[in-house]
């Protein structure tokens, strides 16, 4: 009997080879796809938050353009409009903007004109609405008309519609890209499972002919590929979390940019990735192995 082989200490080896040469490249591909999927998921969450933020900001505000009548000065008309609006239900605050602010708003359109003060620039009143029960544009107009103030109310409804449309588009685009990447990852895992089974056909045949149950053989591959995909998913998710954290830190208090505000909580999107990757691999392996074994006599 072999001196190097201690029968009493023998432990059964795994039925499947523990590592194969192709495993490295497969893990890399799955990890990259998981990384992209996690980043996309974070991007979708951040884009959704950005769209909600833009809409919220616009719906919470209105701008009133006041035109003085008769001998009334523009400043007096603006002050009177602000006072009239302050009393309307659904208005949190109404404030006449200083003329300098109005000039700043139109300066980009007219250039550096020195005598802006000579132009009949209308005065603006900034209205902050009650977010719970915001006053409508019609209520604001009625309040101004009742005080005989010539003014136009802009409740940003045109912009809100566009921004909502853009936000919805960004959200669905992100979800679409995420689903595509997730589907690609699933297809790669399924393909790898089939290739793995084909490469180990000898193992499947020997186990099959030695009396192993079909479910037992399928489970061997299921566990094997679920572990591999879970590991790859962990690598991809960790890399995505590191990149996400980097973007969050680089973006300061507003995340990556004000347009795509990444929050720390968004990094949690990467947490389920290893589990999902393992689950996809397990299902793909189960279906592939079952079909493969079913073809055997």
């Amino acid at each position, binding site marked *: *009997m*072999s001196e*190097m*082989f201690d*029968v*009493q200490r*023998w*432990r*059964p*080896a795994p*039925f*499947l*080879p*523990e590592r194969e040469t192709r495993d490295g490249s497969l893990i890399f591909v799955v990890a990259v796809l998981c990384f992209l999927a996690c980043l996309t998921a974070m991007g979708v969450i951040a884009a959704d938050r950005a769209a909600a933020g833009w809409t919220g900001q616009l719906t919470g505000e209105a701008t009133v353009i006041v035109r003085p009548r008769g001998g009334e000065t523009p400043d007096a008309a603006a002050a009177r409009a602000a006072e009239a609006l302050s009393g309307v239900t659904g208005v949190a605050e109404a404030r006449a903007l200083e003329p300098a602010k109005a000039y700043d708003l139109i300066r980009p359109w007219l250039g550096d004109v020195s005598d802006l003060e000579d132009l009949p620039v209308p005065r603006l009143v900034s209205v902050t609405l009650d977010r719970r029960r915001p006053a409508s544009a019609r209520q604001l107009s009625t309040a101004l008309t009742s005080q005989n103030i010539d003014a136009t109310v802009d409740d940003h409804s045109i912009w809100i519609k566009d921004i909502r449309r853009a936000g919805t588009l960004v959200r669905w685009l992100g979800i679409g890209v995420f689903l595509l990447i997730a589907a690609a990852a699933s297809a790669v895992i399924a393909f790898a499972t089939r290739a793995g089974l084909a490469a180990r056909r*000898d*193992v499947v*045949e*020997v*186990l*099959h*002919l*030695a*009396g*192993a*149950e*079909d479910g*037992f053989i399928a489970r061997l591959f299921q566990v094997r590929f679920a572990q591999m995909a879970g590991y790859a998913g962990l690598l991809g998710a960790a890399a995505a979390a590191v990149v996400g954290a980097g973007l969050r830190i680089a973006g300061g208090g507003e995340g990556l940019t004000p347009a795509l505000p990444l929050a720390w909580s968004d990094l949690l999107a990467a947490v389920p990735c290893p589990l999902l990757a393992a689950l996809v691999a397990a299902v793909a392996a189960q279906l592939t192995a079952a079909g493969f074994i079913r073809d*055997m*006599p």
Partner: protein
Amino acid sequence: MTLESDAPAASYPRSPISVPMSRNPVATVASRVAEDVVRFDDVSMRYGRGPDVLTNLNFSLAPGSFHFVTGPSGAGKSSLLKLIYLAAQPSKGLVRLFGQDMAHAPPSAKPQLRRRIGVVFQDLVLLDHLSTFDNAALPLRIAGRNPADYRNDVAELLTWVGLGQRMHAMPATLAGGERQRLAIARAVVNRPDILLADEPTGNVDHDMAVRIFRLFVELNRLGTTVLIATHDQDLIARSGRPVLLLENGRIGARPAQGPLA
């Protein structure tokens, strides 16, 4: 004179098969199975849409019988064994194993039937990632046996087939004869009800061939039905066992050594 009486008892150690058998509380195969172990009724077989490789075979193997199947290359010996170890299906006819009609056996029953069949494949099909010991123990593991109950028996069997010093070796490092002996050890380790061997002595020397044959004979004495496909006419002639002669996929004229069961 047959190989059984030909082999001097002092030259070869006694087969270890008798040891686990004596411990096994299960009754011998012969007493368990009343009907034929294998029965072919008008069986034909083909691969895909090709021509028949086996045509209208009719024979049966009684429990505890020992047969050779021989014939020229391409006669259908391996295909015949495949039908018995359930690696192929007949294109026509009825195959019965242990009294069960295989055409109507539920898929869930087949693994249990396969565990009752030991096979020495012509191309051996060893698992390269498993050691010699793990390869030999494979059928016992699949049967769900406790390693503590069989590891000594596996070691004893491997020693008996001359692989005692190679238990840790991987199949790729074994010589051709060693691989063949390992395949034989794996086929018999589970003490199958029927043993099928496809050219089991093709790569071993005469002494080892005799030793392997004695192992088969000992298994047979304990009730295992044995069917060996071989070209080795010397082995057949000296064994004195009945022969199934295959020619072009049909059962040909029977040689004189003995009748079929």
